């Protein structure tokens, strides 16, 4: 009876069994907590790690955050295989089962509306990157101790001309990338039941090459997903210097909120 309740997601009741080898957050396999015609999926977690102060500290610990986020994702992913879950924000913790039940009851109407909206749909992530300018890349890739030194500009004027050419090429790539991303986003939004822009990713966190100019999520019906993926795939070769990355299918994390309405 001790411990707090970590809630992953809210679902409609589903018949199928959850994948049995789910570790869950804090190594507590997820349990179902039905209430009315909704089910909360919960783990029992220790207060020492999930109390407010402890959690605040843990969220700044990259290893802890990684492990918790992955455990959360695994449970939501397993739910996606058997139903359409409505995922909650990472680290949503209640004091006890009755706290979870009260929450389900209070927000029942909103949950049902959102579950209806998401039913049978998944999320796809699409990111657009501008690769480093090829000329620049070639220059920086040249080994420092190369037998032949890089050709030096003959004069200051040559140097400036070179620089100008370089920066014009960069500007060109940038405006092409912007156009490309805007066009792609419009096309994909048209085919999706919902679209959401995330902040561009920081390359230090992602480790991805190039600069992220579009980081979008699209809500797509499962049975329209194959077509959607093909459409993204077809754009990939269209634009030199620009890279498109697809992730998913995800549970509809980015579309779980009531359309911009605060739940209060």
């Amino acid at each position, binding site marked *: 009876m001790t411990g707090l309740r970590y809630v992953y997601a809210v679902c409609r009741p589903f018949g199928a069994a959850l994948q049995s080898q789910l570790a869950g957050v804090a190594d507590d396999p997820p349990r179902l907590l039905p209430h009315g015609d909704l089910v909360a999926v919960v783990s029992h977690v220790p207060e020492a790690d999930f109390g407010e102060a402890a959690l605040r500290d843990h969220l*700044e610990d*990259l290893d802890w955050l990684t492990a918790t986020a992955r455990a959360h994702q695994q449970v939501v992913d397993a739910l996606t295989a058997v139903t359409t879950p409505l*995922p909650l924000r990472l680290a949503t913790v209640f004091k006890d089962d009755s706290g979870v039940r009260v929450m389900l009851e209070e927000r029942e109407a909103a949950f049902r509306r959102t579950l209806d909206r998401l039913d049978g749909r998944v999320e796809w992530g699409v990111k657009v990157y501008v690769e480093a300018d090829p000329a620049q890349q070639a220059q920086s890739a040249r080994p420092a101790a190369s037998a032949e030194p890089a050709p030096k500009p003959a004069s200051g004027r040559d140097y400036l001309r070179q620089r100008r050419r370089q920066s014009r090429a960069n500007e060109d790539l940038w405006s092409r990338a912007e156009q490309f991303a805007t066009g792609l986003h419009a096309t994909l939004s048209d085919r999706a039941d919902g679209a959401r822009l995330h902040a561009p990713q920081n390359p230090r966190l992602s480790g991805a090459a190039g600069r992220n100019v579009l980081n979008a999520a699209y809500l797509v019906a499962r049975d329209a997903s194959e077509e959607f993926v093909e459409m993204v795939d077809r754009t990939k070769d269209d634009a030199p210097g620009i890279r498109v990355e697809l992730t998913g299918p995800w549970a509809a*994390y980015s579309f779980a909120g009531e359309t911009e309405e605060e739940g209060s």
Partner: protein
Amino acid sequence: MTVVERREIALVDLLDRLLAGGVVITGDVTLRIADVDLVRIDLNALISSVNRNVPSPFGD
């Protein structure tokens, strides 16, 4: 490519969704740790611990 490879999910993609997506529940029953601003601050701290010179991905 019609079949998408399910290689390991990148942490950033996961955090985009888990920290900026999902239902946010506020109110007396929660421990109120799902607060958006709080989590953003935490993520900023995280990034600066990775590299102090990198500006916040959230811009302004």
